[in-house]
């Protein structure tokens, strides 16, 4: 039996991803379980979902504690969530990250494959929903499921144009994912989740960040009033963003009457 844990953020489609994967594997004659984990998860907040794959009937009914494979749908999640916890030695991590595996800040006796799923999703869907791209990357890096069964399941889930767009994300990621590299020699980087709770640094929730052009700011205070996170303050009649408190919702950019705020993609 092979066990997989998916890490994502609310809105990236981790739960849908395990369901599609379980259905695709079922088409190939496998026994599968897709397990969502429910809580008060909110869009942008960390979520997990699990998958079991067996050659025979699976009797386990609990959550996955020692996965063989971990899939990470978000590039910055590993800084705040212990994504490698319980991962078996020699296990595989498939991660959404725009750079090679040895630069992702993940270390330990694992193998790590990376793919720029955010970039691919933005290209294919116009929105940073990374689940289908990560399924393509998973198929290639793990070799556990064929692209054909994934494509079939995907089109059943979303017939029509949406399905076609997701197919594009799936195939592109399948082609672009890097071969897994050994990261046993790498020092793991990252904060404990505890620290995030106390410091309330939400910068890793962001995919886009507001960039302020001071020259165009007329000090109308709209962005300051509408920011849900109190991330904007006014100093000497100009707006200023505190990036550690900004989740990148984009309200300030949308509401600024002079176009002084533009939302630009975070570079990692």
């Amino acid at each position: 039996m092979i066990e997989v844990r998916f890490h994502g953020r609310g809105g990236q489609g981790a739960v849908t991803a395990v369901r599609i994967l379980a259905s695709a594997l079922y088409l190939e004659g496998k026994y599968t379980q897709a397990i969502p984990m429910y809580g008060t998860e909110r869009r942008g907040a960390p979520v997990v979902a699990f998958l079991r794959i067996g050659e025979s009937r699976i009797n386990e009914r609990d959550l996955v504690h020692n996965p063989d494979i971990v899939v990470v749908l978000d590039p910055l999640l590993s800084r705040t969530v212990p994504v490698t916890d319980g991962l078996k030695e020699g296990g595989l991590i498939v991660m959404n990250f725009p750079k090679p595996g040895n630069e992702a800040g993940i270390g330990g006796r694992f193998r790590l494959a990376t793919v720029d799923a955010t970039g691919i999703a933005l290209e294919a869907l116009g929105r940073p929903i990374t689940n289908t791209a990560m399924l393509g990357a998973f198929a290639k890096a793990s070799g556990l499921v064929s692209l054909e069964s994934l494509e079939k399941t995907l089109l059943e889930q979303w017939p029509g144009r949406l399905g076609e767009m997701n197919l594009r994300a799936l195939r592109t990621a399948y082609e672009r994912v890097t071969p897994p590299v050994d990261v046993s020699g790498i020092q793991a980087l990252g904060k404990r989740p505890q620290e995030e709770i106390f410091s309330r640094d939400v910068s890793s929730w962001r995919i886009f960040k507001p960039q302020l052009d001071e020259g165009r700011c007329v000090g109308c205070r709209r962005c300051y009033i509408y920011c849900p996170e109190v991330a904007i303050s006014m100093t000497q009649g100009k707006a200023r963003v505190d990036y550690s408190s900004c989740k990148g919702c984009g309200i300030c950019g949308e509401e600024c009457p002079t176009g002084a705020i533009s939302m630009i993609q975070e570079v990692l």
Partner: protein
Amino acid sequence: MSRPIPLHEIGEKEYIDPANQACQGCGGAIVSRLVSKALGDCFVRAEVACCGPAFMNIRAPSIYVEVFEGAGALMTGISRGLKRIGREDVVVLGIIGDGGTVDIGYQGLSAAAERNENILWVCYDNEAYMNTGGQKSGATTPYAATTTTPIGEYSRGKLERRKNVPLLMAMQGAPYVATASVAYPEDLLGKLVHAKGIKGFRYIHVSSPCPTGWGYDPKDTIKVARGMVQSGLWPLYEVSNGILKLNYKPKELKPVREVLKMQGRFRHLTDEEVDRIQGEVDAFWSRLVEKDGGNIF
């Protein structure tokens, strides 16, 4: 009646800590921050189970109960306790979800209004039970898709009409009742400051769009809220001792279609259904205009 507060008069002091645990672009989070800014240093916040605690980082004493039908009783208790120790100057504030207000919390709400308890009840209305995944509530706009009114062969979304709790509260004789919207902070803050100066039962119902449950991009929270007001889907008015005043009265309302089409929960609507909503909105609006400036009962 209230006086709108211009943006440049809103104080710099924050009563909420930066960054919360709500979704990106949460309308309720903006409401709760603006409410605290309007009330200033002197309030106690009552809280019940809802999304509220996710955007709670408020620098004020808070009392929380898990049972979300309990807001009316909780606020009553706090208010009576404060009276006993001679601190009636402290505002007893509740920031309560629509489920905890118009449905399961309604008994406690209407009883508190009946007793004219000295409390300020702010309902942030995201039009469903969002904390538990978006089940429809009595505040959900008709025809909306929610997790309990999905779209399919046998269902076209929510069937029932909205419960109009602000008007119900006014009919119960509450000294001050108002609707507001997160897209109109000048109006919202004016109403809060006005309500702060009144003794007795005060009720403010604030439209607070929810990107997660309504299915739109988080950047559009204010746009959606504004569209609801401009189209008459969410009229802004206040009722002081029975006298109604419309606070936003354009020459012509925008068609509802535009704002409905921005939201995933209305994507299934046919032209005929949109027309039906338009008809209901127009009818309610003309009755409001008729009553404007006069007694509602």
